[in-house]
């Protein structure tokens, strides 16, 4: 891999991490298509490097989200129990599946995520008060820096969230992505969480899922330092920027950006998979 390609991998990772952190997706969902479609990285190596970069993105991005009070730590731990089991299963399958199938699957996942977010673009959380019953001890409160509003919320349908989390983990393992692409929308739409809380919580969660995924790819020899190192360095830059921007940008604008980019990348991935 030449110097120019190394720099491009780092740059692509920085852009992906900025978007990923803003949307609570971990960035992997953007990285795999950018690496394989535009930088000629072999899909298995792109997925392996992305798995490591996704953890780095979460480690860096979570710090800012934690500082803003956007992360529901208890919920993240609860949902990760099922997600991590799915992730290990998915990563083991990924080391045995054909690359073109992975591309088509990722393309479908990208389009699904874009459409689902576009259909549910409004912040659907319900403001709760002190008297609302809290059986899972998950009620949380934070001050939104963009509006200075105090948001008190409680995640709903926790068991369903955990079930969907298994599927999110499976995708994470299969595609090297953090699984935030499913976790974020699940928390917005099913669990009725505020967008910033779901983005912050998902950012932390993808790091935990990513540990299991990255270790499976490490074991299978799919972590190429020539791709992983620039990807991680790019992520260090992009993730900090993304988390910084999240607290200043209107949440509904993020969804429109998300829809446009993911639809384009999804179609490109399916096209490439069919071509392969």
């Amino acid at each position, binding site marked *: 891999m030449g110097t120019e390609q190394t720099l491009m991998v780092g740059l692509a990772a920085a852009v992906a991490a900025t978007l990923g952190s803003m949307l609570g997706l971990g960035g992997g969902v953007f990285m795999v298509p950018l690496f394989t479609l535009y930088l000629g990285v072999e899909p298995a190596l792109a997925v392996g490097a992305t798995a490591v970069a996704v953890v*780095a993105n979460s480690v860096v991005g979570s710090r800012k989200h934690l500082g803003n009070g956007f992360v529901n730590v208890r919920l993240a731990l609860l949902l990760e129990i099922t997600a991590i089991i799915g992730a290990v299963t998915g990563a083991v399958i990924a080391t045995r599946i054909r690359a073109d199938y992975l591309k088509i699957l990722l393309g479908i996942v990208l389009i699904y995520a874009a459409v689902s977010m576009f259909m549910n673009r409004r912040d659907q959380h319900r403001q709760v008060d002190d*008297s609302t019953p809290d059986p899972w001890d998950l009620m949380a409160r934070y001050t939104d820096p963009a509006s200075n509003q105090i948001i008190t919320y409680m995640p709903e349908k926790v068991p369903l969230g955990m079930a969907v989390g298994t599927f999110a983990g499976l995708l994470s393992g299969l595609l090297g992505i953090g699984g935030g692409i499913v976790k974020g929308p699940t928390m917005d739409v099913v669990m009725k969480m505020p967008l910033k809380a779901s983005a912050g919580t998902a950012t932390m969660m993808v790091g935990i899922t990513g540990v299991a995924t990255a270790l499976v790819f490490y074991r299978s020899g799919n972590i190429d330092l020539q791709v992983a190192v620039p990807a991680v360095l790019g992520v260090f830059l992009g993730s900090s920027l993304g988390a910084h921007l999240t607290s200043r940008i209107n949440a509904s604008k993020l969804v429109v950006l998300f829809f446009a980019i993911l639809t384009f990348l999804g179609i490109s991935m399916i096209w490439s998979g069919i071509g392969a």
Partner: protein
Amino acid sequence: MSSTQLDAKVENTRELSRLLANVLTWGFRIGATVIGLGIVLAVIQHRELAESIGSPSQLLKSIRSGNANGIISVGLLVIVLSPMAGVIALLRSFWLQGDRRYAQVSLLLLTIMIACAALQLGG
């Protein structure tokens, strides 16, 4: 839940968030520093980055011989394992606060993570 209880819980969550942020910050700092050292070493040694990390035993051998790729790989592993350190810190904190439910949740999650790490790094 009364207003006072919710305020106490919000404050408790803030403390947990600060703790986790500190652990992740140190994981990031140590990992990034080690990767940086490895890159400098690679430049000095005129060595290209390796195409894979290698098995744990190869990695140990590589570190002992001062190989840049071994050092960089350790930095990557420190970052990858930082969230696991975060879960350990949360487990300890929940345990000390007497929050048995979330201490158990953390312990279960940590057990799964350690089992996965042992399986993948062990052989």
